[in-house]
């Protein structure tokens, strides 16, 4: 029997953006907008981002350092309430190996003239290939990129 392990973890990230809730939600819902911020580091090689934003719809994207291992993101949209919330399940592969399965929710709340976003991820991290701390760090980076895209008015 191969050595197997599962580490379960949960993290929550909050961000407040000086943008209307409809605009922040659109940055998740509109494929062209999402592709602008939902990407790995600048020096990574990237695949085409595909997004079918509806309940039951899928999203895929992959990327990785030049010549290095490729990270694959496969997501299913489980529940969508426009301008309110998005619930997804997603799995990550590193090359051929499945490294995690996660349940992620994003909640959008009006905060003054802006929007408070609450992202909660509950994950099963498999066989020690990835760590929740790294996932949280990476997700914070993505939400910072979303903030920058909103500031620059490109989403």
């Amino acid at each position, binding site marked *: 029997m191969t050595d197997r392990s599962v580490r379960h973890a949960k993290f929550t990230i909050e961000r407040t953006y000086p943008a209307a809730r409809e605009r922040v939600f659109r940055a998740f819902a509109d494929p062209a907008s999402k592709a602008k911020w939902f990407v790995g580091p600048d020096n990574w090689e990237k695949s085409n981002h595909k997004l079918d934003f509806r309940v039951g719809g899928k999203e895929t994207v992959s990327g990785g350092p030049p010549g290095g291992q490729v990270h694959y993101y496969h997501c299913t949209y489980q529940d969508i309430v426009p301008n*309110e919330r998005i619930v997804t399940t997603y799995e990550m592969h590193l090359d051929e190996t499945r490294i995690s399965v996660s349940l992620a929710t994003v909640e959008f709340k009006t905060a003054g003239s802006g929007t408070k976003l609450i992202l909660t991820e509950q994950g099963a991290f498999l066989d020690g290939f990835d760590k929740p701390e790294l996932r949280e760090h990476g997700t914070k980076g993505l939400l910072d990129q979303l903030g920058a895209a909103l500031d620059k008015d490109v989403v």
Partner: protein
Amino acid sequence: MSIQHGSFTIARRYNATPMRVFAAWAIPEQRQRWNIHGSWTVAEQTFDFREGGEEVKRFGPPGGDPVHVARTRYEDIVPDRRIVMSSVTAVREVPTSVTLLTVEIEIAGPGSRLVLTYQAALLDEGDKIEHREEGWRSILDKLGATLA
């Protein structure tokens, strides 16, 4: 609109090998002997136990209409060792939860130890995590009875 996040873990020991415990999940004729809580009943169940496979279960309380539907997808399967699945449940077509369920099976003495970890986003106060935990304890007791 609201989301309640919750999780729980239940561990059980069974006097059966990991292979037998895994088979109780994998083989439809075996799973339908135990996979519903309390005295609730299953009105309809499809089976597709493989990675990427999707199943639908329609169920309800005793004497009531089977208005509860769970749609499950098998995310990760390691034979005799691990099953990870995601599920969406709805009552009368209104979604009540999205969950991630991990079942780990390991050798323990002459039998097995099973650890079930449930991670959930419960939607719009349609259900409580305590009820889900109670339900799964009941289901795992029934599984134990079929393995005894």
